């Protein structure tokens, strides 16, 4: 998947790119123009707003009481409007409280019933959900840049999780060595599994989308089988859960000094570092240059002497390593519990939407992962006031709008940006 530009026929009111304007209009005019233009930043912002708007409509429609008030809208419109406002604002306020800051905690703190740990809990939860999404988003985004659609992040994550787990309980080492080793094991296992579709594509031409979807199934079933084996299965529990990693392999919490309950751990820091590294790799290194070249035009890259097959294998390996790090974050982050078939959730698949939303740029991916992490944490904590599906629904609508910039442009009557609308598309798919 790559970022492509659809050039539109220029229209007179839209100045051509490349010409030098004679005098520069004042800043506020330029800023206003920017706000009303369908450039990629504004389309993203408007997509978020539109998604929340659509979410509001659905909240109103799905609430029985509010529907009732709308039935006599023409006799007493204020009833309907008030009820609607209440349900929508309650829902979004609870999402915010669950994801960022709970105002009630402030009140309780003033009364002495809560501490700083309680105040930080929503943020901690958001960042906990964000961490694996950064890795899987990068795993999908990096592959996008080489023109590869890595659907297989979920499977790579599963193998990374198992790799980190095995090193995590299998070796007896001091934490200073044990943790890094377990993290590296996760990355290596993910890279090994991730490079399989790359090798298949390079040697046989098998499309990576097909092979990585199939490998996801293999990984999911392998996980179920592996957890049940004597090697991994918990010695003390009867349900499908693995042994826990040793205490020396548990990733320490960043905010643990404040409160042991705050789950966010140093995997987040590794994630941020990975994002910086991927940015550096793509923009500064020869490897990244080759990834971008192959992603844009493999024919010209081959003509210039680059090996396309090798690029596919190494890129998929690197993507797999990133997804494997997500798995390591989960394995080392669950603490004294073991891994279940549920631990991986859908982080690998969510990585696809995160990469899309972040437009395959590391900075964008981190921002998108934060947003999705916040939605997830908010939705989980706002239950049962807000249906938990609300978060999925918002994610889906946001991506829908982002994927269709022309729709956003038409809905909001935005002006065409210089150089055309930017859309994401998968090459050869």
């Amino acid at each position, binding site marked *: 998947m790559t970022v492509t530009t659809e050039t539109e*026929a*220029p229209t*007179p009111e*839209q*100045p*051509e*790119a*490349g*010409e030098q*304007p*004679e005098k520069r209009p004042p800043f506020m005019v330029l800023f206003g123009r920017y706000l009303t233009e369908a450039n990629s930043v504004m389309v993203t912002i408007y997509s978020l707003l539109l998604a929340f708007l659509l979410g509001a409509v659905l909240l109103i429609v799905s609430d029985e009481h509010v529907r009732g008030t709308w039935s006599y809208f023409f006799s007493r419109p204020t009833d309907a409007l008030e009820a609607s406002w209440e349900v929508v604002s309650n829902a979004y306020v609870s999402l915010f409280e669950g994801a960022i800051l709970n105002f009630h905690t402030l009140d309780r703190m003033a009364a002495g019933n809560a501490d700083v740990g309680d105040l930080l809990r929503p943020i901690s939860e958001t960042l906990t959900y964000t961490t694996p999404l950064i890795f899987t988003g990068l795993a999908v985004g990096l592959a996008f840049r080489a023109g590869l659609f890595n659907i297989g992040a979920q499977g790579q994550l599963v193998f990374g999780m198992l790799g980190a787990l095995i090193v995590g309980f299998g070796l007896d080492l001091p934490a200073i060595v044990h943790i890094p080793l377990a993290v590296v094991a996760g990355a290596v296992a993910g890279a090994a599994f991730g490079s399989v579709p790359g090798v298949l594509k390079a040697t046989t031409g098998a499309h990576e989308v097909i092979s990585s979807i199939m490998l996801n199934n293999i990984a999911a079933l392998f996980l179920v089988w592996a957890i049940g084996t004597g090697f991994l299965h918990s010695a003390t529990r009867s349900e499908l859960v693995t042994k826990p990693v040793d205490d020396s392999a548990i990733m320490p919490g960043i905010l643990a000094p404040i409160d042991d309950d705050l789950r966010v751990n140093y995997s987040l820091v590794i994630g941020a570092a990975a994002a910086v590294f991927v940015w550096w790799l793509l923009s*500064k*290194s*020869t*490897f990244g*240059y*080759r990834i*971008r*070249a192959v992603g*844009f*035009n493999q*024919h*010209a*890259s*081959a*003509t*210039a*002497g*680059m*090996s396309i097959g090798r690029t596919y294998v190494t890129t998929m390996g690197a993507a797999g390593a990133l997804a494997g790090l997500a798995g390591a974050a989960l394995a080392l982050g669950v603490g004294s519990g073991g891994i279940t078939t549920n631990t991986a959730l859908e982080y690998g698949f969510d990585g696809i939407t995160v990469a899309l939303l972040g437009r395959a740029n590391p900075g964008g991916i981190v921002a998108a992962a934060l947003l999705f992490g916040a939605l997830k944490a908010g939705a989980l904590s706002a239950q049962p006031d807000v249906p938990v599906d609300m978060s999925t629904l918002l994610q889906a609508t946001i991506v829908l709008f982002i994927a269709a910039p022309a729709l956003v442009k038409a809905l909001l009557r935005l002006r065409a940006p210089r150089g055309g609308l930017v859309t994401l598309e998968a090459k050869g798919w």
Partner: protein
Amino acid sequence: MRLELKGLTKKFGSFTADDDIDLVVEPGQIHAVLGENGAGKSTLMNMLYGILKPTSGEILIDGEPVAFSGPGDAIAAGIGMVHQHFKLVGPFSVADNVQLGREHTRGAGVLSARAARQAVRDVSEQYGLRLDPDAICEDLPVGVQQRVEIVKALSGPSTELLILDEPTAVLTPAEISELLDIMRSLAESGTSILFISHKLKEVQAVADTVTVIRRGKVVAELEPTASETEMASAMVGREVTLTVDKAPAEPGEPRLEIEGLMVVDEAGVKALDGLDLTVRAGEIVGLAGVEGNGQTELARAVLGLVRPDAGTIAIDGRRADRTSPAQRIERGLGYIPEDRARDGLITEFTVAENIVLNQYREAPYAKNGVVDAAAVRKRAEDSIAEFDIRTQGPAEPAASLSGGNQQKVVIAREFSRPRRVLVAAQPTRGVDVGATEFIHSRLVTERDTGTAVLLISSELDEIYALADRIAVIYNGRIVGEVGPETPREVIGRLMVGAEAPSTEAESADIEAFDAESPASGGTASGGTAAEGPDEETNGGDRDH
């Protein structure tokens, strides 16, 4: 139809693409519009076809002003357009493509295949354009696909004016001469034709009148009898020398040796069938041939993108056929690919990134796997100056450069490292006169520094202008190696496999096309060596 443009102007912001264009196309006239890439030809045609709205000025059809809000209006007014890049649905049949957008139905949305076929046959017969309505478009040769486009354009409700935008860019010589015949007979039957081109020879051969556009302005109205130098100079805005100055070649040791090269394509057809060819240091060998006779496979095999099924390739006396493209590039193989947009450039990359595309890993452009952006930019700035690349700077995306300047980027890249062998495939395709002149002189300079140059071109003019020796390829084999003084007819016959009787008709076409052009010596891409006395002597000296 009489078409008149009065003061037609198109502005994009403060940039004026077309400035006060006046132009008249009389009924049954072939009116050529000449101009370099970016001169405003396409903008003009897009206004005429309703794709763009003029900023000012008017379009008159038979004296009546018209305003088009889309191509539909233009078609309704009797204007048909054949785009440079065909707009055909590949897997559809000819009849389905022709009826696209105005399908023949039996009412209630049920397609009538019979009516569609009949409509194609009617137009085919009326204008003498042979077409099988049931053929699948993507299986047809390019020349026939273009005929489909023409029939499609003529199938409008009342098409009386046909716009042909660079129609010969993708055609073989035989297809070109056929197209020119079609244009003539269309004009005879009363259809007006607006012919956009920058190939002077074709313009001379077919046009009734010529309008030259430069930087959005009409700069000259010429008769087709005007000399090519006159037309080229008007297009470029300065004196243009169409002949390439070059001293006699001094061939040295063999640098590129190809023996018994065999490449079997996926369909099991032998694209190259035991090809032998040697190129020596300090000479340009021109490979002439009708496209599709193995030129593409030869170039790709020499670079290493296809693995030969038999035969050997040696670069600089060392076997190279088991090495990777990167290794051959390292050994000093330069390569100008025939399809610039596909193989030559990464259009999303900047000019600078493109210039180092095959050197990005080497010092000084990279150290320890890290690209040195400053060194890359410095290098790009040097190349931009040396090769006169018209760009806003090293950071401009290659996509926004004109075709000629894009090609200069490719050439700057290939000429930037020490070379032993250069393979130049169609180096001036889609490139305007000014850039062609430049590229030709660089190729000769390249030869003079001792590089072995293999020039693959489907344009005989280019071969004659540059080659010290001409090899003719037919059906994957070299069927003749001749000196540059060899007459066109001889090479034309070799190009179509002279000994095969079934191809005599095609051979006649090529000769006919050459005979039709009133040009005496100068051509679009260079002087014909056969007629230049200097060239002739040179050629004689070199003809071993």
